[in-house]
């Protein structure tokens, strides 16, 4: 089975996020990028399917800040067979429509049986990469999936609904699946294996169609939420704090 995983490099939320000067997006020079967490699950799920049903896993992503190699080497160390990056004169932010277009162009050429991708990503949080890929590639789509198993010509996927209801879908191939969680937590890639990959692996480069421009919607403003109220910390030892609480309650006419 030819499995392709579409991944996204997204800003790390371990950093306190800085906004750019005109307040239209993040200050991308001041954030680190990491692999989208859901894509980690998509990679794990792809490798699990490969281990169970045989086949080959290719991981592909847009090289947004020219630092995707590390992510791809990690995916290879985890069991992916091939890696490709979409390159060009690219600068963040890349909206999900452009992302999906470029990914679909690249994936279409790969002739996949199964395309896995994270169900959403922290950068735009619109969960559209999967559905748009499916539309571009003319394949069925199931999202928010928590387990994929392959049999002849189709895959069975599980999806969890609110209220504790589980559904099982049989999806004919080729198909695009939006992964919420892999059956198992993503495995660990030892650094020595990643470093080996960095030395030996070849990453295919695919040119982005830079003429493509999406003009559907524009991000006008990005700002940090203004806190509505604030908590007051009562400090001191138990006695003092108790007195302050009493004073507070009296003050509000509650005692």
């Amino acid at each position, binding site marked *: 089975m030819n499995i392709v995983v579409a991944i996204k490099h997204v800003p790390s939320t*371990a950093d306190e996020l800085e906004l750019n000067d005109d307040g239209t997006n993040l200050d991308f020079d001041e954030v680190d990028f990491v692999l989208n967490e859901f894509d980690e699950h998509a990679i794990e799920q792809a490798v699990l399917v490969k281990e169970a049903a045989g086949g080959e896993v290719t991981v592909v992503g847009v090289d947004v800040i020219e630092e995707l190699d590390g992510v791809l080497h990690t995916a290879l160390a985890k069991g992916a067979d091939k890696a490709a990056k979409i390159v060009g004169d690219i600068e963040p932010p890349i909206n999900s429509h452009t992302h999906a277009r470029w990914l679909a162009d690249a994936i279409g050429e790969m002739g996949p049986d199964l395309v896995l991708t994270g169900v959403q990503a922290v950068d735009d949080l619109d969960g559209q990469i999967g559905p748009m890929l499916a539309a571009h590639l003319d394949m069925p789509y199931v999202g928010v999936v928590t387990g994929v198993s392959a049999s002849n010509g189709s895959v069975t996927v599980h999806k969890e609904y609110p209220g504790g209801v589980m559904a099982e879908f049989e999806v004919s191939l080729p198909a695009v699946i939006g992964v919420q969680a892999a059956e198992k937590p993503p495995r660990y890639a*030892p650094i020595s294996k990643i*470093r080996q990959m960095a030395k030996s692996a070849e990453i295919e480069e695919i040119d982005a169609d830079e003429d493509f421009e999406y003009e559907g919607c524009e991000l006008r403003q990005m700002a940090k939420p203004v806190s509505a109220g604030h908590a007051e910390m009562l400090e001191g030892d138990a006695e003092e704090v108790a007195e302050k609480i009493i004073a507070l309650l009296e003050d509000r006419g509650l005692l």
Partner: protein
Amino acid sequence: MDAGLDKVDAIWEKEVAIVDGIDISGPWNRMFEQRVVWEYTPELIDKVAALPGAESFSWCYQCAKCVPVCPVDMVGDYGPRKLYRKAQTGVDLFTSDDLWLCTTCMNCVRVCKKVVDMVKIMPAVREQAVLDGFVPEELQKAFEDTAKYGNPLGQSQRKRAAWTKKSDVPVPIMKDLKRPVDVLWYVGSYPSYHPRGIDAALAAARIFHALGVDYGILGREEKDDGDSQRLAGETGLFEMLAEHNISMFEKYEWNLMVVTGPHEYNAFKKEYKQRFGFDRPIQHYTQFLADRLDDLKPLLKHEVPLKVTFHDPCYLGRHHGEYDAPRALLQAIPGLELIEMGRCRENGYCCGGGGGGMWLDSFTQNHTVMRLSERRVLEAAAYGAEVLAVACPFEVSRFEDAAKSTGNDQLRVLDILELLDMSMRGVSA
């Protein structure tokens, strides 16, 4: 698979024997067989000993000296002798939970006549386990965070020097200084990010400032030393961090490196030296300050009238033989009464944080009756100490949590740096 148990059955069967129609069944028949211990397979012992560094595992002659000194055995069922015996009876260390319980505290090696060296055996076997995909989840997270962010706490690398903004004295950063310094202070991950670690870092900055030390820190150019990750099996990660740190150390001119933590001390002084040829003068902060005691003493103006006991960090004490410098500092503080616990110096107990234990808390809890840190706090409390003094950034949070969880809130846990700072400034913690 329990390879040994089949053999046991076979031997028991020998007890039933009918010879020439006469039933002579009975336990005495066993004397005609080799003793049970010879019947076990040596394969699982050889499997460990075959790894470079782990050869000494097979030297064990089961004398059991190591068991009573093992801090894990004190709260559980452990020790090199037991691991060897279990391997004889079919337990594969590579996939056993036992693999992750050793803190590499080195107390067993200290007493073992055969020099069965767990400090080398554990990382060798763990490295293989990590490569084979057996890593406890908590530990995996610490590895991933260290790889991504340069620190096991999962904090932003960009914020590594953010603590300096809280300092009331200047903390020079090498990149901005643009000149040689006398002392390069390697701050370390926990003093850079953990709230209680930052308290110690701020105290150190004030002390260095008061002593007029010409120093600088690396700030954002500094990454975790990686030694505890190595001991937990991630050699590749250790090498990656070592290469980075060494290139930063070599980027600047300095005469002496001072480190806040004993694990970093071990990393740079021993491992970076042996593996990468990094050979520069390094001191733990207790050694650095003890050498400057004549200048420091006049600064310690205020009494700190507390009953203090000291926990020897494994990687300062047993691993590097430094027991006196921390005590010299504590004794220099006016009013402070230093009391020793039974398990001190060479036989000091372990906080449980070494060798990856820092990131295996819940895992270890499932195999022990209490945390090692809790065992230690109970000991300190039993000696009537008001303060448990430490000199390792791993320990403050571990012991503070342990003091709370064992109901010993009265016991304060302070880094020696904090106690010195209290005496210098006349503030109580």
